[in-house]
């Protein structure tokens, strides 16, 4: 089975799309926030490759083409942002205040919780960049002496969690405007969350895209300050 998969240049992509389709079907059928297509497709592929004893590398041999598209897709986030530029100008201060508040909350809460759990410095700086986009987060973790693999894992878990919970949190805590929803999602759950914000609406998507960039850059500076605290 492993060899068969290894010799195919499409099977990883096909399994991933199949998982996503199953997720979309379940979501439309049961309308439960936990039935998130991304979450279901990840679980589906995990179960699939575990059952058939397929190595992750064999799966990724073809699935990597999906990841390949991530950089150009992120560049394309400039398009909805461009279309909402006027709205951004009008709400410049509110948007930036929201993002900065998010960055400080992320760093601050990791700091306080690390104290409570008595994590080592290494573990603490591993978690510091958890809310921002993977590539920046990896760089920060490496620079501060964290465990990069765990940083990546935590960033992905954060994104998926944000993607799953975004709609419920906005509803439950009465985050009203589309702008605020976008800022909230992008600041807390980077690009994975932004995928959900895009589904919610154009303004949400655009603000979420902006929040990825700004919070990523601010965290680069903020994390180096917070790293000295513990």
């Amino acid at each position, binding site marked *: 089975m492993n060899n068969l998969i290894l010799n195919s240049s499409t099977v990883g992509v096909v399994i991933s799309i199949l998982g996503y389709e199953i997720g979309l079907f379940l979501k439309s059928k049961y309308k439960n926030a936990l039935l998130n297509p991304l979450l279901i497709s990840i679980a589906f592929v995990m179960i699939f490759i575990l059952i058939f004893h397929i190595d992750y590398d064999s799966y990724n041999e073809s699935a990597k083409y*999906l990841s390949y598209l991530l950089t150009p897709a992120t560049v394309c986030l400039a398009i909805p942002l461009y279309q909402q530029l006027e709205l951004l100008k009008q709400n410049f201060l509110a948007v930036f205040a929201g993002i900065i508040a998010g960055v400080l909350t992320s760093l601050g809460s990791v700091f306080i919780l690390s104290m409570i759990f008595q994590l080592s410095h290494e573990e603490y700086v591993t*978690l510091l960049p958890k809310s921002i986009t993977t590539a920046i987060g990896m760089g920060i973790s490496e620079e501060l002496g964290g465990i990069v693999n765990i940083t990546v894992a935590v960033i*992905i878990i954060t994104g998926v969690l944000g993607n799953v919970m975004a709609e419920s949190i906005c509803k439950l805590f009465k985050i009203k405007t589309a702008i605020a*929803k976008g800022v909230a999602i992008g600041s807390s759950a980077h690009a994975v969350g932004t995928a959900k914000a895009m589904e919610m609406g154009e303004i949400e998507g655009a603000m979420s895209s902006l929040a990825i960039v700004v919070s990523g850059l601010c965290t*680069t500076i903020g994390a180096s300050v917070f790293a000295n605290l513990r």
Partner: protein
Amino acid sequence: MKYLRQFGIILAVTCIGELFKYFIELPIPSSIYGLVLMLTLLKTGLIKVERVKDTGVFLIDIMPLMFIPAGVGLLLSWKQLKNMLLPVCVITIITTILVMIVSGKVTDYMIKRRKPNE
């Protein structure tokens, strides 16, 4: 041909983003340089939005799928992760929810303060 040309433009901008990344020694990924560059090109009118829009919207539309391989990759870091599973889970859940609430609420508050009569 339309889609291919649009994809070509998007990849070209991405590629210049990669050059930035190569020459500037900061922990900033090429995608962020590319995003800012694309926004600048659109804003200055050097690229008309119609020239990238269709393919761009398609790529954004299928973006969730692009996170599946990385998500499945969690299987590989499981061994390292399980040593600090409890703190990681608690911290991840609390922080993610907290950041979402605070940044959303602050933005909402600031927007409301600016237009108090709405």
